[in-house]
């Protein structure tokens, strides 16, 4: 659809009920709203929900919503199969058998809330709120989870637990705030309502697709197919990926990088662009600091050095760097892989430096600065509400690594939590509240170890639409959670602000917001004054003031908290008003280019960026305070052809994990018949030559093993990976298989997190190496012990000391650390 205007002109607006929020059509009630998971993703696309008798019957994309103009991925197109799935949890339930037996008894919401309130108050009295851990998943309204944790449970310990090294998004967020003072995304015209027809917009001349497959992941509030429209409008492609994708097959340069070495490539690009003077001198002079220091530090990172590290020929590094630097505008579409390497904070800084020195920040078709429309918050950060004594016990990285860096996140550090769970240090975790996280099937690195640790927690409540492996393994109570079409909520992340309207219901399921409100009313009523979820959303959209602002006066060193304090929402529409005007509202801030020239970035209205110095800090002042080197660098993965050449004899292949597929969002959607029709089993992609060498055929079950554990997937032979690299999927469990132990829905069978390691992070506890491991592969034989059996019945794969990381490999083997 290279011609967007033609598309708009061809639309029959009446047929799609322009201006209506709800209408009748062929016996259905149709609701115009936005989707947010579960199940789904980060995006919140405009949808038309067709319901009959309070049941979702079908879903269509809304062509009148500028966010996607009707296009939907298969996850929303099968929303009816998820919403009406017979295996959903219908009522609150309490455990009646032992943990692991999957025996439950229906209880009322009153009984559930009474029990929970009693348990929480007991923990408060005996151990303090800090002994409660709130675990949440990703996507949808995870922002309010902070409010829930801080204000209702009174705990500072909120985490995507199991996720070592904050290795998703946070490194990119902070790696961008530090040099630029704002976050940035690729300009595909999404800032303004007129989209591709905005006369100021031009598509990127070249898009660097780096460390993600945006078409399948639709991650971080970004619709990947926007970029395909840009390509239709003329954008060229540079693809940086260990795997060939749609992008690589159409790219000017497909740089098939060795996993975990992206920072080396970024440093070499900086080297070329600086030394060949391809940078934008005016922009650097006017708007940047630290150029000299950056230029000096990059001298050692020559293209030939980077060739050795990344496996990309030096000539390709040079040519691609030239193309990026000399094409105007140019944009870098970065993704999750940036965060899942030890050099995460360096790599993200390097990318921002590249965007800045080439003059591509906040220009049409470049990387535009982005904020939540109308400054609407996801929810104010409320840590000061927690009693000081409990707040100060937050499980930060200091507890694990003793680093003296300043804390810069709002969440607890996963490894510090693991230590507390394993050895009650510095205090025990007495209760877990798991709000829709399929912990051991998905986010938890070192899944077998996290599983063992979770079993030590005396009381676990799990709110989820489905009974999942973690429910069976350790939950004592289950709460049924609503699917997206059953919720009144809103979406304030980036732009536009969107409403989410309830169109149907399912037995006694409640939304996260409703659960939070009901529980909050009991535990801290002053902070939960709303009569229902809609009033709560009205407050979130238009107000966000708190009953006791004095609590927030004390200055904190936590940047997130400080910036949240000065944030005032300018949005004026209530939830129903927003729904009735079409469900979305664009703002001015995000639709303007070159905001730094217009005094739009800094709180005092002066020109410049929102950093301390007002300029792009190519060498950010705050990095050393966070314990980080302020110029880009490369750290080898802990186990790799360069860091452990000896070990490569035993584990000769590089293992990358977590590539996305069309059908699934992390561990979601495994119960959806259409998804499993298209994608029935977990697939490990192996180059045909490699497969032949190891005697593996298409569709064979294969073991993937490292020095830590093993897992089994089905072989997919394809030249998209090179001969030294294999790529395994994540998030698999098998809702169709046995729930009870040792099966746990087969959650350990295909789980790459049998092989990932806790306590292995980059500097200051940020970044991990889960996308850049090493392994060997061999065919599965009938009768081989399955990982569930190994983990649950046979003591796991390896020995470890509670609360500690792993010794080096030799010691590990000599001391008989491995059981398998």
């Amino acid at each position, binding site marked *: 659809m290279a011609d967007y205007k033609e598309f708009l002109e061809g639309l029959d607006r009446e*047929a799609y009920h322009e201006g209506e929020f709800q209408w009748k059509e062929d016996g259905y009630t149709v609701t115009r709203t936005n989707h947010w998971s579960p199940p789904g993703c980060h995006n919140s696309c405009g949808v038309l929900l067709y319901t009959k008798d309070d049941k979702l019957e079908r879903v269509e994309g809304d062509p009148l919503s500028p966010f996607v103009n009707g296009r939907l991925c298969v996850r929303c197109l099968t929303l009816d199969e998820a919403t009406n799935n017979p295996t959903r949890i219908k009522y609150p339930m309490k455990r009646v058998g032992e943990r692991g037996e999957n025996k439950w008894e229906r209880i009322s919401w009153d009984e559930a809330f009474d029990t929970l309130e009693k348990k929480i108050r007991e923990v408060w009295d005996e151990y303090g709120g800090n002994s409660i851990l709130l675990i949440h998943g990703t996507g949808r309204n995870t922002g309010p989870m902070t409010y829930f944790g801080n204000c209702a449970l009174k705990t500072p310990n909120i985490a995507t637990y199991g996720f070592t090294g904050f290795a998703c998004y946070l490194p990119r967020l902070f790696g961008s705030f530090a040099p630029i003072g704002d976050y940035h995304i690729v300009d595909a015209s999404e800032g303004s309502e007129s989209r591709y027809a905005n006369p100021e917009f031009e598509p990127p001349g070249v898009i660097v697709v780096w460390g993600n497959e945006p078409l399948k992941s639709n991650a971080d509030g970004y619709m990947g197919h926007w970029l395909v429209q840009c390509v239709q409008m003329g954008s060229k492609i540079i693809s940086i990926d260990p795997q060939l994708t749609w992008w690589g097959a159409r790219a000017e340069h497909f740089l098939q990088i060795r996993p975990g070495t992206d920072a080396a490539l970024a440093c070499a690009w900086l080297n070329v662009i600086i030394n060949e003077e391809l940078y934008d001198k005016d922009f650097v002079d006017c708007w940047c600091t630290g150029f000299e220091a950056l230029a000096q530090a990059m001298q050692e990172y020559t293209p030939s050095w980077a060739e050795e590290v990344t496996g990309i020929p030096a000539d390709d590094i040079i040519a691609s760097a030239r193309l990026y630097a000399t094409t105007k505008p140019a944009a870098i579409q970065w993704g999750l892989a940036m965060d899942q390497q030890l050099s995460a904070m360096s790599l993200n800084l390097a990318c921002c430096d590249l965007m800045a020195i080439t003059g591509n920040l906040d220009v049409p078709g470049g990387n535009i600065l982005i904020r939540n429309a109308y400054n609407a918050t996801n929810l104010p950060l409320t840590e000061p509400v927690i009693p000081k004594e409990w707040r100060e016990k937050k499980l930060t990285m200091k507890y694990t690594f003793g680093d003296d860096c300043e804390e810069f996140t709002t969440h607890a550090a996963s490894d510090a939590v693991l230590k507390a769970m394993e050895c009650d240090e510095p205090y025990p975790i007495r209760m877990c509240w798991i709000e829709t996280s399929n912990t051991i099937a998905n986010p938890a690195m070192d899944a077998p170890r996290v599983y063992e640790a979770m079993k030590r927690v005396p009381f676990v409540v799990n709110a989820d639409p489905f009974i999942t492996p973690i429910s069976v393994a350790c939950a004592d109570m289950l709460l049924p959670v609503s699917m997206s079409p059953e919720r009144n909520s809103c979406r304030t992340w980036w732009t536009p602000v969107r409403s989410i309207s309830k169109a149907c219901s399912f037995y006694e399921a409640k939304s996260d917001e409703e659960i939070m409100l009901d529980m909050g009313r009991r535990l801290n009523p002053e902070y939960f004054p709303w009569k229902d979820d809609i009033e709560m959303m009205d407050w979130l959209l238009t107000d966000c003031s708190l009953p006791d602002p004095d609590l927030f006066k004390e200055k904190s060193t936590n940047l997130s908290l400080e910036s949240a304090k000065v944030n005032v929402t300018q949005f004026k529409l209530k939830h129903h008003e927003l729904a009735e005007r079409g469900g979305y509202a664009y703002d001015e801030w995000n639709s303007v280019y070159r905001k730094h020239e217009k005094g739009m970035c800094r709180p005092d209205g002066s020109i410049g960026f929102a950093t301390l110095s007002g300029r792009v800090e190519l060498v950010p002042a705050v990095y050393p305070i966070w314990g980080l080197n302020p110029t880009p660098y490369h750290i080898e993965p802990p186990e790799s052809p360069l860091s452990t050449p000896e070990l490569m004899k035993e584990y000769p292949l590089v293992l990358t994990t977590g590539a996305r597929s069309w059908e699934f969002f992390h561990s979601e959607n495994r119960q959806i018949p259409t998804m499993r029709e298209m994608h029935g089993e977990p697939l490990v992609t192996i180059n045909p030559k490699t497969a032949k060498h190891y005697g593996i055929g298409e569709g064979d079950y294969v073991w993937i093993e490292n020095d830590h554990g093993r897992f089994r997937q089905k072989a997919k032979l394809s030249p998209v990976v090179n001969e030294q690299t294999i790529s395994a999927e994540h998030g698999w469990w098998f809702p169709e298989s046995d729930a009870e132990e040792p099966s746990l829905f087969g959650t350990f069978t295909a789980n790459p997190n049998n092989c990932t390691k806790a306590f292995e992070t980059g500097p200051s506890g940020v970044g991990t190496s889960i996308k850049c491991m090493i392994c060997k592969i061999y065919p599965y034989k009938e009768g081989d012990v399955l990982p569930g059996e190994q983990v649950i019945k046979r003591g796991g794969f390896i020995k470890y000391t509670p609360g500690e990381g792993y010794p080096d490999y030799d010691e590990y083997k000599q001391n008989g650390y491995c059981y398998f």
Partner: protein
Amino acid sequence: MKGILINSEFCTGCHSCEVACKKELGLVKGEFGIKLTETGPWKYDSGNQAGNWEWTWAPVLTKACDMCEERVARGKMPMCVQHCQAWCMYHGEVEDLVKKMDGKSRWILLTR
């Protein structure tokens, strides 16, 4: 005559057309009104593309496709076209669609 025009240059193989159509026609497992084909991936060792990769997707209509007659009569797009994520599908009168075929990319015209 109505038809569906595909610009297979940009089709990403996202399966949205397949699933949207299954929902419209109420087709069970294994049955489709439109089905995706995949060509590649391979790297050319020979010819004018030597050194380049090939990986092309394109959907094919089955006997079950009724061109979404009912939807179209009401002014709506066919389900597959409406949901095509890559925006590489066009629906309309064949003579209009043919005019889009500009000789610059790989177009496929589907009719029934």
